[in-house]
């Protein structure tokens, strides 16, 4: 009897205790990409929560394209689902301009903001103010198989050209069972094949738009660059090249199916890790190849953590993003996951760290490539946009996706390169007219 009478009181007390507990706790929702480095970050949740007992983390980890859709619809409609978003150098200035991101002008003193690499920091700033903190940054470079090059008696040049790459690919292609001379991204998408094609076009002297925003996609430089790309992959590429993106090529190269591969510097850690790659002993590095001009021959990209202005938990979110992009975090990953797995390309201090330099001989290359990639001056002739492998305007997602599709169609031989580029040019002209850039 007594027990029963006390039951409601006990329940009430318990409810009060629970709600009191919940009030002290702030739960922040972090949206991030399912890339290796971010998965490591997620696995370190406990470390963060232990150090910040009043914050708990709720993760939304998705594939890049799906994540981008969810975040864009959320932020554009002021949904406020997420407190921390993982976005790239493409989105940051555009979203910051619309006032969708919280400016990060008041960072804690121990964050050491001057330690961030200048080119990366510039890419994440709008109006001279940081709007996102870099989680990792990458440029592009060439990976090759030293053993195969030695066997064939080829010497890698200090700054290879695309013409040389073609010759080497023709020599090495098929010398072993299932060995392709070269692997490149062929999967359509502005973050996939367009990244590689853009750098190729840049170094062939082309540009996306002239200074009046007229598209130049069927210009001679584009035709030459894309024709070269299509011929190279069809003659010396792996089978099914048009469906290979970054991850597919990473798998191919680490299984030993490619003699050369030009792609993101962030692959270096994985290729160099003997557990994940069978070519770690014979892995060679070289700068991304050039053609007519070295300008814009390698890209600059960074994944960064930003706080949407619609978030109601600004303080907790700031605490999290300063933790995940700090020197302390780099060391934490180095100690727990191994130094080849630390997020690269964001801080000078990472590259001054002896443990990192020792574990990752590619570090110097990567740092060099990131430092001399200049998004504000990436084309031979002047252009009105910033970005090496993208154009920093909101319309570019759709333009890039569509051009990526037509180039993939040229790669599979559905259309000729000229037809594909003419089609891309017309579609882009329509988009630009509709958006009011041109009449």
């Amino acid at each position: 009897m007594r027990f029963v009478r006390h039951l409601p009181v006990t329940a009430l007390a318990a409810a009060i205790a629970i709600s009191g507990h919940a009030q002290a706790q702030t739960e922040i929702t972090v949206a991030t990409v399912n890339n290796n480095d971010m998965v490591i970050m997620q696995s370190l949740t406990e470390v963060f929560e232990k150090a910040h007992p009043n914050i708990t983390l709720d993760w939304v980890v998705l594939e890049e394209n799906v994540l981008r859709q969810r975040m864009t619809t959320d932020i554009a409609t002021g949904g406020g689902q997420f407190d921390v978003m993982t976005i790239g150098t493409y989105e940051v200035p555009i979203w910051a301009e619309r006032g969708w991101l919280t400016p990060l002008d008041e960072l804690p003193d121990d964050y050491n903001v001057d330690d961030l690499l200048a080119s990366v920091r510039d890419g994440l700033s709008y109006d001279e103010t940081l709007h996102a903190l870099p989680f990792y940054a990458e440029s592009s470079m060439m990976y090759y198989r030293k053993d195969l090059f030695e066997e064939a008696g080829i010497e890698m040049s200090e700054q290879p050209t695309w013409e040389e790459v073609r010759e080497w690919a023709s020599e090495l292609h098929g010398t072993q069972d299932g060995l392709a001379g070269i692997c490149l991204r062929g999967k359509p998408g502005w973050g996939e094949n367009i990244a590689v094609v853009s750098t190729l076009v840049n170094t062939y002297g082309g540009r996306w738009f002239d200074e009046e925003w007229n598209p130049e996609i069927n210009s001679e430089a584009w035709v030459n660059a894309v024709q070269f790309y299509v011929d190279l992959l069809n003659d010396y590429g792996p089978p099914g090249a048009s469906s290979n993106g970054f991850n597919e090529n990473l798998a191919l190269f680490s299984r030993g199916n490619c003699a050369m591969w030009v792609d993101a510097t962030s692959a270096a850690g994985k290729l160099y890790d003997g557990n994940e790659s069978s070519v770690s002993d014979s892995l060679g590095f070289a700068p991304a190849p050039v053609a007519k001009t070295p300008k814009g021959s390698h890209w600059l990209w960074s994944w960064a953590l930003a706080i949407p202005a619609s978030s109601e938990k600004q303080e907790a979110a700031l605490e999290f993003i300063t933790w995940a992009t700090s020197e302390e975090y780099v060391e934490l990953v180095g100690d727990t996951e191994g130094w080849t797995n630390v997020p690269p390309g964001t801080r000078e201090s990472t590259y001054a760290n002896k443990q990192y330099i020792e574990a990752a001989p590619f570090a110097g290359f990567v740092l060099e490539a990131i430092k001399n990639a200049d998004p504000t001056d990436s084309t031979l002739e002047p252009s009105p946009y910033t970005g090496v492998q993208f154009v920093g305007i909101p319309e570019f997602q759709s333009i890039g996706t569509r051009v990526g599709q037509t180039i993939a169609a040229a790669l599979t031989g559905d259309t000729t390169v000229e037809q594909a580029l003419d089609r891309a040019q017309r579609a882009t002209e329509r988009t630009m007219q509709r958006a009011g850039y041109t009449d």
Partner: protein
Amino acid sequence: MNRPLASGRTVGGLRGLSLQAPAVTLLLLWMIVPLGMTLWFSFQRYNLLMPGMDGFAGLENYQYLVTDPALWTAMGNTLLLVGWVLAISVIGGTLLAVLFQQDFAGRGIARVLVISPFFVMPTVSALVWKNMMMHPSNGVLAWLFESVGLPAVDWFSSLPLTSIVIIVAWQWLPFALLILLTAMQSLDEDQVEAARMDGAGPVAIFFFITLPHLKRAISVVVMIEMIFLLTIFAEIFVTTSGGPGLATTNLAYLIYIRALLDFDVGTASAGGVIAIILANIVAIFLVRMVAKNLED
């Protein structure tokens, strides 16, 4: 003939209306609200990435869409996809239904197995086909081709639409089979017996007895499948992303591109309205056909 009339009178009038009202209102809202919003958005200039440019656009979205060559390619692909999958599943389904109606050892298990593809989720089956069946270097089909000395086919880049048709047909053939097999079971055995005694061969029995008997079931299959096939999306999204070029972009995928890759809600809604019109044109023909069949 008199009975329905009488029962109609008892629940008719105000009472009947008030009883029907909640259900009908709910259904109406269920349909009208999304449709109305789609129509409204289709006349708006509304791009998520460009706040401040909103406003009434008139027919601009439609004009932009109709002058886009991609729309007509997508329409063509939609009709091709629907047509081929219907042809394969109806013809294949009828033949298989006749086959599985025969008595043979293990028929029960065989029936379950042949129907099971229908219960696999579209995304899962697309992934299985993409990575385990049609993959040019480690797929089963590549291995089969190579074992008889043929070069492996890179399905999704050299025969994109055919590949999608194969995947979708693989999923929907069991559905057709399921419906037609049940219809077969209601076929009067005496009739078949009588025909056989009159000297009809198996082919004649199929064409003059089985097929006419299945006519209704076939029209039901055609109608139901059509509704689902017009909006095929997952298989395309997972395997080809509408490419290469626009080779596998159907209307549903085109709307997805406009809405969630371009974030152009206005044009996407206009595309949605066009899709509704297309579906209705197709449905009118179908409803007529089915209605005629049911009257006979």
